[in-house]
């Protein structure tokens, strides 16, 4: 189906999409392929760092009573090892694959928000450097990767160790959240025409599920980290049982995030296998629909199993039964994947490449890790083995088996696409077998150590306990595994220069990324593909699939600047032509300034913090200043009829982006209010001591509701061609918002005389919740004023494109109102009716 385009078209596209060379291009590139490769390399470096930490720990534990490390050094090493592997390697490496592959697999020119993509990467780098910078003052995080309080409270851990942990992970959380929103909007808005939901590669389902999970799970961690930082630095009492707080609140918040996160770092990796395995089995994946659905179901069920990390904390029996049951049910969708992969191999004609070996290794390790997971879902079994090496063995089988092995399979599979050269297969087999034998020698005996009663996180042990020989074997396995990783590095470096040239499709694979050159051009596709089936490159051999033949190479051109199609979410019918942003320095500047802010907070230094926030504010203003040459309100003639440029409301990517922001912010407030309900319900004393005064809060509630009604009225008037009424309504809304903030400030002033944030847990929660809500009102006001100014300016020049963002801002303002109603009901009204 491919047709040859005029060379001038390719040259023009190349000039439009290419990132300039040198340091400027390095700092400003928004090309998803560049960002994807950077993610992969950076996350791999963190894997090596985490591996070195593990190697040091295994040397310490190789024999009884060794003292290569001090207890404090060991504490810091196991903590940073966990933080590195779970937060800085496992998720970012998958973001790397997804960033690189998504637009290529989906038939698009880039991600929906290319600059946000760059911001996500630079924030990840900033967070990693920030956490690792703690090594220079010898105060790396030291309370374990899940950082339980009260160990992590200032009274027991007075250094800056935990501050680096809390602020670093908050920064990384921003990176992951914006990255997740980008993936979600990219999926729903920028696929190739015809790529309906049933035609997505499975890795896309995996990353989509992980991204949705992130939007709802990460706010729980953010809330926990903010509470922890405030407790440590400003003397609040969220986790302090002597003042109405509760240490178990940390565990709930952490694991509500933590268990879904497990699926965040395995589902996209399972997607790698689901997409690559069929290529080497020469047949489509067995049970595509089952696997796609199982992926999503796992993501949902993952939210209902957090309590199995807390079985030993005194949960009532029914609670144990509910969460034990859910933890077993979640094995069903996981098993669906295993059976689908086995059936694909069974019914296929396997080609035993290194990638294939890594995938088979993954299936074996996943099964072992999965079975030990079901075992620990049984409450009595968990009680016996919690905090022993059995758990260490289980989690490493899961994380190494389901993340590292598919990642290496992914490297062998897509390295040719990324570099244009094949990895060496002979060295690859050595690489696989060394890693596979190493991982089993390393982790399988740990089950035995756990059953023998060896606790996790001890820095040494006595010689008479019978653990010495097994520990030595484990250490040998660790170093064997490390040799395997080293072989891969050698292979990659050698193959970059001397590998066999790959060509477009060296594996005869079915998906769109293999239809373009290796490596792909900056614009990905000279013409946008129109997709007719799930396997566009296998249509000749799968005649019973799809509707017609995919159009590759001679589809729609879209070459008037950086353009791609925006589509309808379900059926991928083009509904807009999207103008994509060019390279920009501002994502980098914003990331640097936020990292600087974190340093200011940890030292602490008001000057550094203020400087960081100032640069961040300026970067945001520069980022969002109107693009020159934007052609809003225009339409373009395409193969799919006349389409608007960029579009508005539901059709625009900005609307979808705002929807993602609201979803994750809603979750953030839900966790804040749930924390309030939890501490309130378990408080011994009446909470609050005196019922809150409604004389200011009630009128304030009415003011905010009225402002929403006024804005909604104005928006309708704007849609009906009356921009002056819209402008008036926005002005009234801004005034009402300011009045709300002034009244709230007055209420704070009067309440501070009786309750302060440091008085007790109630005070801490009251001011945190209402304060965050106030900050959101302020953010809404800034958005309203921005649209008001921009709309008025453009209206003065005879245009009305400045009002297009009003739909998004209205949605945000309504959200802020709904949150306040929930806050008002929980914090002000309920204490009166108890």
């Amino acid at each position, binding site marked *: 189906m491919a047709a040859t385009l005029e060379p001038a078209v390719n040259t023009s596209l190349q000039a439009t999409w290419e990132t300039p060379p040198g340091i400027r291009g390095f700092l400003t590139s928004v090309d998803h392929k560049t960002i994807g490769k950077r993610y992969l390399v950076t996350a791999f470096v963190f894997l090596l760092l985490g591996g070195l930490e593990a190697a040091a720990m295994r040397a310490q534990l190789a024999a009884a009573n060794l003292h290569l490390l001090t207890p404090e050094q060991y504490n810091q090493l196991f903590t940073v090892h966990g933080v590195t592997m779970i937060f800085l390697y496992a998720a970012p490496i998958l973001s790397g694959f997804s960033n690189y592959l998504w637009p290529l697999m989906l038939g698009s020119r880039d991600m929906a928000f290319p600059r946000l993509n760059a911001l996500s990467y630079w924030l990840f780098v900033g967070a990693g450097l920030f956490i690792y910078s703690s090594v220079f003052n010898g105060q790396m995080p030291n309370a374990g990767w899940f950082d339980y309080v009260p160990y992590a409270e200032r009274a027991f851990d007075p250094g800056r160790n935990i501050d680096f942990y809390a602020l670093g992970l908050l920064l990384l959380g921003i990176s992951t959240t914006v990255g997740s929103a980008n993936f979600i909007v990219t999926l729903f808005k920028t696929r190739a025409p015809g790529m309906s939901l049933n035609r997505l590669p499975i890795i896309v389902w995996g990353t989509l599920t992980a991204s949705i999970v992130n939007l709802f799970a990460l706010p729980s961690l953010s809330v926990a980290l903010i509470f922890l930082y405030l407790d440590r630095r400003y003397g609040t009492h969220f986790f302090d049982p002597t003042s109405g707080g509760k240490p178990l609140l940390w565990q709930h918040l952490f694991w509500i995030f933590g268990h879904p996160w497990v699926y965040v770092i395995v589902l996209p990796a399972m997607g790698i296998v689901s997409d690559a395995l069929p290529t080497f089995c020469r047949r489509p994946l067995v049970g595509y629909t089952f696997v*796609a659905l199982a992926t999503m179901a796992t993501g949902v069920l993952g939210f209902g199993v957090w309590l199995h990390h807390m079985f030993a904390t005194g949960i009532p029996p029914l609670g144990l039964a509910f969460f034990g049951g859910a933890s077993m049910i979640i094995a069903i969708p996981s098993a669906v994947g295993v059976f689908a992969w086995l059936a694909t191999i069974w019914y296929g004609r396997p080609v035993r490449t290194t990638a294939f070996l890594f995938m088979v290794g993954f299936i074996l390790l996943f099964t072992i890790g999965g079975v030990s997971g079901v075992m620990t879902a049984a409450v009595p079994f968990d009680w016996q083995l919690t905090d022993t090496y059995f758990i260490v063995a289980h989690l490493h089988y899961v994380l190494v088996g389901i993340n590292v092995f598919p990642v290496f399979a992914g490297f062998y599979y897509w390295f040719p696409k990324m570099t244009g050269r094949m990895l060496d297969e002979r060295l690859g087999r050595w690489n696989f077998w060394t890693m596979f034998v190493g991982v089993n020698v390393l982790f399988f005996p740990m089950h035995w150590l756990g059953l023998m009663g060896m606790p996790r996180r001890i820095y040494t042990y006595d010689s008479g306990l019978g653990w010495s020989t097994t520990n030595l074997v484990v250490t040998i396995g660790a170093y064997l595994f490390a040799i395997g990783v080293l072989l891969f590095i050698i292979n990659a470096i050698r193959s970059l220069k001397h590998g066999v040239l790959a060509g477009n499709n060296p594996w005869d694979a079915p998906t769109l990324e293999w239809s373009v050159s290796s490596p792909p051009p900056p614009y990905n596709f000279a013409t946008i593909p129109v997709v007719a089936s799930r396997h566009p490159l296998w249509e000749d051999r799968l*005649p019973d699939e799809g509707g017609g033949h995919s*159009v590759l190479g001679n589809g729609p051109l879209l070459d008037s600047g950086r353009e791609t199609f925006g589509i309808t979410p379900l059926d991928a019918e083009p509904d807009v032509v999207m103008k994509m942003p060019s390279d920009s320095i501002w994502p980098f500047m914003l990331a640097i300034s936020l990292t600087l802010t974190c340093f200011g907070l940890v030292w602490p230094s008001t000057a550094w913090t203020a400087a960081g926030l100032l640069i961040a504010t300026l970067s945001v203003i520069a980022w969002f200043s109107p693009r020159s040459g934007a052609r809003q309100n225009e339409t373009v003639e395409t193969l799919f009829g006349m389409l608007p440029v960029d579009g508005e409301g539901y059709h625009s990517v900005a609307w979808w982006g705002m929807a993602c922001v609201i979803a994750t912010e809603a979750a953030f407030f839900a966790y804040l209010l749930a924390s309030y309900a939890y501490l309130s319900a378990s408080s011994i004393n009446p909470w609050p001591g005196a019922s809150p005064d409604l004389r200011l809060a009630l009128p304030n509630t009415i003011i905010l509701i009225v402002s929403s009604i006024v804005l909604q009225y104005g928006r309708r008037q704007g849609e009906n061609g009356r921009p002056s009424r819209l402008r008036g309504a926005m002005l009234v809304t801004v005034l009402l918002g300011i009045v709300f903030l002034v009244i709230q400030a007055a209420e704070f002033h009067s309440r501070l005389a009786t309750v302060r944030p440091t008085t007790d847990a109630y005070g801490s929660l009251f001011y945190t919740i209402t304060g965050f809500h106030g900050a959101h009102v302020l953010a809404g006001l800034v958005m309203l004023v921005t649209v008001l100014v921009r709309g008025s300016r453009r209206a003065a020049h005879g245009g009305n494109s400045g009002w297009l963002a009003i739909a998004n801002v209205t949605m945000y303002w309504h959200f802020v109102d709904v949150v306040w109603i929930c806050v008002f009901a929980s914090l002000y009204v309920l204490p009166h009716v108890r």
Partner: protein
Amino acid sequence: MSTRNNTAPTLGGSSVDHPSPSRGTVGLASLWFGLGGGPIAWSVFTIAIYAIAAQACYPRMVPLSTPTMGSRTLYVSLIVISCAAVIVGVAAGLVSMRNWRRTSGEISGNTHWALDTGEGRTRFMAVSSVMTSAVFLLAILVDVAAIMVVKPC
């Protein structure tokens, strides 16, 4: 083996068939209810029964041997919530089955081979919702069984 229907609607001005020719057969609300009914019912149900059971048995700092509201009241509360969840889960399952029947021939081919080909976006959503409903109904029933047999405190 599918045969392309020359009269099938196409995607815009392209030669590619529309990916969901049966999209007018079942409503989007019905598809989304089938897909989301089970998971939402299970999520709300799990949070509700856990919160009630935990608060009844561990209201403050010390665990109790009998629920604060009495065993009978706790049991009845949990069963009422369970019934609501089961009803929503079953309804989602039934709606999904109906949607699947209506869209099973969306794009001709191995439509009886649910394991292999699931062509047609509408059919894909319908088949997915049947499976979702089954998994989450099972998850609800496991919790109902726990309510029946496990001592609350």
